[in-house]
């Protein structure tokens, strides 16, 4: 029985058939790279190279290259770490949570969002590794491996260690989830290709034959993985927030951190998905699959998560006052009116005020305004991490050790390196892998395309 809706917007426009879906999405993989793609790759590789110098300098000289001091022992490194991990969250949210909620609009964007997750987590994981100072022995410090050099085991009391487990589990489960989704599409490309490309995509397709039995198991796997990944989404940023919340630093020691970090992560993640999707749909001519409807729905998620984040900021302030603890009260007054007031107010403007503009339908359905606001949200979320980390640290319990943090060229360079890495990986993905999950989109052609809803 065919069910079509006359009230819902179609998810696929342009009257596409199954063959069109294969053709439109494989086109990018099979054709020559466009000028836009080549230019993008060159810029990303440039950032990777320039940033690589700063990374090399940091590894060679040590993290004294960064602007850290005795008072501010964490700054851009952990800011960037938390920011990148947060960006990763939208991918898993789209592929796992929205799958469980049977939101079909996720189908056009899940593949790219999951890729974004993986690349963002790679960028994120770099920072804690480098900031250990000697990353080449990092495995011994971070993983429970038997060794004969000193303290024999890692400390399971430490939230920093929980992070190691959380991030590595998150990364590997997301990778598997992503790859399983890619297998049927690799088979599609394999069956269209010839020569060396046939062998490469054949190897990647794992011998997929499209049998009903395999599809049935595949669907069970996807559903269970989604069930496993959903609490994982919540746990990862919750655990990241424990890095702060379990400490006794005023401004960090708060129970609101876990949900507030998760909301912030989804908020920034969706902003990055929008940034990437708006470019991708234009560059690869996928406007019929990633429609204004998709963009509008993502903007609605931004309104919701942005509002949660806004309420969290206000609640934090209220609780600081209500607690009656002078150090806590000072930490918050200092955030808003101290030397880093500009960072605090940038955060408030970008994260609390700007997403509220999406209440206007004209704004949330405008590609240009959405693109600008998605960048604004990403900037705002970076400031949020910076404000939490640096403003809480720079005013110590002892006024004699109060200090400021100034980034050095190496701080900026390492951050630039991760941008180069992220966009290089994303562009390579977009060229050589199908950016949209063809098999899933094909399954809704009959129920949600413009052809049938008309």
């Amino acid at each position: 029985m065919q069910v079509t809706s006359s009230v819902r917007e179609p998810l696929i426009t342009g009257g596409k058939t199954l063959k069109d879906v294969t053709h439109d999405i494989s086109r990018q993989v099979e054709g020559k790279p466009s000028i836009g793609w080549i230019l993008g790759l060159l810029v990303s590789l440039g950032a990777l190279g320039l940033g690589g110098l700063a990374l090399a300098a940091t590894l060679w000289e040590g993290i004294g290259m960064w602007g850290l001091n005795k008072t501010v022992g964490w700054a851009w490194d952990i800011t960037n770490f938390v920011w990148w991990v947060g960006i990763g969250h939208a991918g898993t949210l789209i592929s796992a949570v929205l799958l469980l909620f049977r939101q079909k609009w996720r189908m056009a964007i899940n593949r790219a969002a999951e890729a974004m997750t993986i690349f963002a987590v790679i960028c994120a994981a770099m920072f804690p590794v480098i900031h250990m100072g000697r990353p080449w022995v990092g495995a011994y410090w971070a993983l429970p491996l038997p060794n004969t050099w000193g303290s024999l085991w890692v400390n399971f009391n430490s939230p920093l260690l929980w992070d190691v487990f959380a991030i590595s589990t998150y990364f590997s489960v997301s990778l598997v989830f992503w790859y399983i989704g890619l297998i049927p599409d690799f088979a599609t490309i394999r069956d269209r290709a010839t020569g060396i490309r046939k062998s490469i995509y054949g190897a990647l397709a794992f011998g997929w034959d499209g049998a009903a039995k395999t599809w049935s198991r595949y669907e069970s796997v996807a559903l269970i993985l989604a069930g496993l990944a959903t609490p994982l989404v919540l746990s990862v940023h919750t655990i990241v927030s424990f890095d702060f919340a379990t400490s006794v630093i005023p401004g960090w020691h708060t129970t609101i951190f876990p949900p507030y970090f998760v909301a912030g992560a989804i908020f920034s993640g969706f902003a990055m998905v929008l940034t990437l999707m708006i470019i991708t749909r234009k560059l690869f001519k996928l406007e019929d699959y990633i429609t204004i409807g998709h963009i509008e729905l993502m903007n609605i998620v931004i309104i919701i998560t942005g509002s949660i984040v806004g309420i969290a900021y206000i609640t934090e302030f209220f609780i600081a006052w209500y607690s009656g603890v002078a150090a806590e009260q000072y930490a918050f007054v200092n955030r808003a009116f101290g030397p880093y007031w500009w960072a605090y107010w940038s955060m408030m403007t970008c994260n609390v005020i700007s997403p509220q503009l999406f209440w206007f339908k004209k704004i949330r359905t405008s590609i240009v305004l959405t693109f600008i606001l998605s960048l604004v949200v990403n900037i705002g979320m970076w400031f949020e991490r910076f404000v939490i980390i640096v403003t809480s640290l720079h005013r110590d319990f002892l006024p004699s050790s109060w200090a400021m943090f100034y980034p050095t060229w190496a701080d900026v360079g390492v951050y630039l390196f991760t941008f180069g890495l992220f966009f290089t990986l994303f562009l390579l993905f977009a060229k050589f892998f199908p950016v949209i999950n063809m098999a899933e989109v094909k399954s809704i052609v009959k129920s949600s395309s413009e052809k049938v809803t008309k």
Partner: protein
Amino acid sequence: MERDKNFILGVYEDEDVLLDAITKVRKSGVKIHEVYSPFPVHGIDDVLGYKRSKLPIAAFLFGILGTSLALLMQFYMMKFDWPMIIGGKDFAGFPVFVPVTFELTVLLAAFGMVGVFFVSSNLKPWGQARIFDLRITDDKHVMAIDLAVNNSMEEESLEEVLKSSGASEVNKKSFE
């Protein structure tokens, strides 16, 4: 005639026609080898008479394994092998073990289940698929009927069953 070598293929354009066709073909006494589709067709397991997958059980068992390993590892390391008081905390307080235990449960459940899926579906890197029709991964559904299994029926009557069930084409395919 050997089993699993010579097939008659019914090609279908539409998933609803396919679902209907599977029921018709099975009713006429023909044993279906397998049905191939470019995307998951809901309800196809029921009409083909497939049992529910046991993958959830695999995931659960691997999850339990993850939980046990994580707890054993942490208690052994912190309480017995190298007990150390850090920050005045207990050697082995259960609450601090929760995050790592959760993560390892999820990790093992996911990897174990996916491993079982790959093995049971015969999917592996460089795995070679038997391609019945190149259009299966594009836009066509294909019902494959093994001639050897249905050797009581004539080829012509099998073709007739497929055609009358709504197949847009009926082809033959042999594998070496």
